[in-house]
């Protein structure tokens, strides 16, 4: 092997890679690799293996290295094509994944225009321009593509609404707010293949006659914004933004940290420089949106699918997936599992396949999965044979959402998880609707009481009663979906709620008000690291924890070399 010559080296330097230390690896490789070109690329979605390095050989083969450190030993190993730290896609994952949208992620330098065009980039736009706008809209309709931002609205139909408008200005908006806290599909796509999203937007602009293009991107994604800006200037340079003889402006606006701004009408208000408060629909944005002009909003991943449809044809796209959900879907897999990452699977893949086969989660340790973030619900492990498509998930009281998928282990408390989501939504409510503003706050306060062991059975009835009322009485999707995490956990894990209320017990030993800290002396080696570590001096010199003083911060448990400090049921050990 070592006689093979190295042609090029790639390092994954998307934000996830950088957070794992990839920038230092890139730098060291550059300084050591002499004449071999070393370039940065996007992400391959194997977050657990970051930082990752790909070595491309003269014979066309590639060798991957995982969890590389910026140390000479690691670099020597790579430059000599050593056997250590080699990476292969786990066979179970390879078998279940279908990489379409992410085909170029981690394969090209996102800042180089030619890298995109040499790999089929802008062929979709070219084909679109050879058709009439109506034909393009029909092609997207035929493909069966549905919005990836959560709602699942048929994309082609939405386009036809805007196309039908006869006004001098029409606005096209890419929703890159990615508000679900625990999702990173859109970030990864924008960072890794920014041109693909932009190509989708240009095709949409041609099909609908849009004259002004906005990307509303959350400010927490500086690398995505940087790569989009570079890509836009390349588009200007190559005049790809000249559509129907008109030069289209593409504008990036940064969000300012409000979840509700992911909602269409709030997003538009924010784009206008106002408070991001949703308004009543109708009028729908396609009738009256940004500054009163007809405006259409699609999600990042939705646009990312469009070049594929135009390049390969609607039929090829529609051949993938299920009856009502076509194509592939990206999921951001995180939480309690071995191989967190960004995955792409055909619609209709089961949760079991995603969580266990692809994610490598331990079937004995998983309790549930949360899809759709704060708007979604949990799905218990018993229902993991459910195929992931818009309609099946809805039936379970969960939603597809935008693609955040959090695996929840058996040692997590579902009541606390519900409390967490309501904490989020009640703070993010814009305050316009009483039911959303007051209702979510009441729900949150009730859940706080329950996790503190001060709940009553009547509280559970209250939650079940007010949930549907908030749904009904809220103007926008935030309020309408905010009760979902509570109602879903009540439906599947009522016994956990009851244990908190009736027995003052948290099965998972997570709710701090219901646990004590305890040192199991049989294993203790009296190193007293815990005594030194405790920030509040709650551990005596003879290794007894004063649970009155203790804040349950876990620092002692964490530092104990014998792992002999435990969380136990409150009052169970005197």
């Amino acid at each position, binding site marked *: 092997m070592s006689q093979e010559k190295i042609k090029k080296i790639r390092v994954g330097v998307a*934000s*996830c890679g*950088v*957070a*794992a230390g990839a920038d230092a690896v890139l730098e060291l490789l550059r300084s050591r690799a002499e004449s071999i070109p070393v370039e940065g690329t996007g992400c391959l979605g194997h*977050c*657990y293996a*970051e930082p990752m390095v790909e070595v491309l050989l003269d014979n066309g083969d590639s060798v991957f290295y995982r969890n590389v450190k910026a140390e000479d030993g690691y670099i020597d190993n790579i430059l000599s094509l050593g056997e250590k730290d080699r990476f292969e896609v786990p066979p179970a994952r390879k078998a279940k994944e279908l990489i379409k949208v992410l085909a170029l992620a981690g394969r090209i330098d996102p800042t180089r225009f030619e890298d995109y065009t040499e790999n089929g980039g802008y062929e979709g736009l070219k084909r679109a321009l050879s058709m009439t706008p109506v034909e393009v809209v029909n092609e997207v309709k035929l493909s069966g593509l549905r919005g990836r931002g959560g709602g699942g609205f048929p994309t082609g139909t939405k386009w036809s609404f805007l196309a039908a408008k006869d006004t001098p200005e029409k606005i096209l908006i890419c929703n890159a707010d*990615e508000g*679900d*806290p*625990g*999702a*990173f599909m859109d970030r990864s796509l924008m960072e890794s293949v920014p041109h693909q999203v932009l190509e989708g937007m240009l095709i949409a602009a041609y099909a609908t006659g849009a004259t002004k293009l906005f990307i509303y991107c959350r*400010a*927490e*994604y*500086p690398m995505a914004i940087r790569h989009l800006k570079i890509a836009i200037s390349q588009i200007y340079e190559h005049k790809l933004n000249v559509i129907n003889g008109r030069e289209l402006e593409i504008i990036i*606006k*940064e*969000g*300012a*940290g*409000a*979840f509700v701004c992911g909602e269409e009408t709030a997003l538009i208000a*924010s*784009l*206008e*420089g*106002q*408070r*991001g*408060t949703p308004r009543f629909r109708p009028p729908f944005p396609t009738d009256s949106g940004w*500054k009163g002009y007809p405006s259409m909003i699609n999600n990042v991943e939705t646009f990312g699918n469009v070049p594929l449809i135009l390049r390969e044809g609607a039929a090829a796209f529609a051949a993938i997936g299920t009856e009502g959900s076509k194509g592939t879907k990206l999921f*951001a*897999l*995180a*939480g*309690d599992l071995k191989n*967190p*990452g960004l995955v792409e699977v055909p619609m209709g893949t089961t949760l079991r396949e995603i969580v266990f086969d692809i994610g490598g989660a331990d079937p004995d340790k998983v309790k549930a999965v*949360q899809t759709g*973030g*704060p708007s979604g619900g949990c799905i218990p492990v018993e229902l993991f044979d459910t195929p992931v498509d818009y309609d099946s998930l809805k039936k379970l009281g969960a939603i597809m959402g935008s693609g*955040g998928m*959090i695996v*929840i*282990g058996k040692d997590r408390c579902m009541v606390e998880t519900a409390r*967490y*989501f309501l904490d*989020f939504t009640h703070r993010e409510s*814009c305050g316009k609707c009483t039911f959303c503003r007051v209702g979510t706050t009441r729900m949150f306060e009730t859940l706080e009481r329950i996790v503190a062991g001060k709940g009553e059975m009547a509280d559970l009835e209250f939650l079940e009663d007010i949930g549907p009322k908030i749904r009904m009485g809220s103007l926008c999707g935030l309020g309408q979906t905010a009760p979902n995490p509570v109602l879903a956990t009540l439906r599947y894990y009522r016994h956990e709620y009851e244990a908190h209320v009736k027995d003052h017990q948290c099965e998972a030993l997570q709710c701090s008000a219901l646990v004590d800290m305890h040192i199991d002396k049989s294993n203790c080696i009296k190193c007293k690291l815990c005594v030194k*570590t405790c*920030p509040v001096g709650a551990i005596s010199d003879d290794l007894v924890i004063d649970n009155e003083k203790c*804040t349950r*911060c*876990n*620092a002692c448990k*964490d*530092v104990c070399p014998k792992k002999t400090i435990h969380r136990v049921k409150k009052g169970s050990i005197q």
Partner: protein
Amino acid sequence: MDQKYAFLEKVGKEPSNLIKGLQAVQGAEGYVSDESIAAISEYFGIPAVEVEGVLSFYAQFKRVKPGKYKIAICDGTACHIKGSTQVGEWLSRELGIQSGETDARGHFSLETVACLGCCSLAPVMSVNGRVYGKLDRKSIVKILKEYENK
């Protein structure tokens, strides 16, 4: 207008650029001061109360000066599941400040944010935008030490 805020000229006077203007000010000064609100109000021709109305809606805008090193604890779902509550507690203890506060010497400030997009490395925090993942108590103490004397 104060020469100090001449950079606003690059933003564009369109009222729809108000948020961009606020971002420019915060980018330059680290927060939005009363003085900068006055400058923005003058530049866009929007009354100062309206400017405040908009900026108070968005979590991004700070009205008090942050520390030299801004620590953001991620409390997105993945990080929460992986123990961000504890991360927050440890940081608070070490720094002697709560989330939303700045220490007395203006060196560190602490805030809680929702998702930094690196969920697979949870729990995660960032210091002036640099993300640190797979945190435990030991790594936190080490990271703080690194910035302590910077």
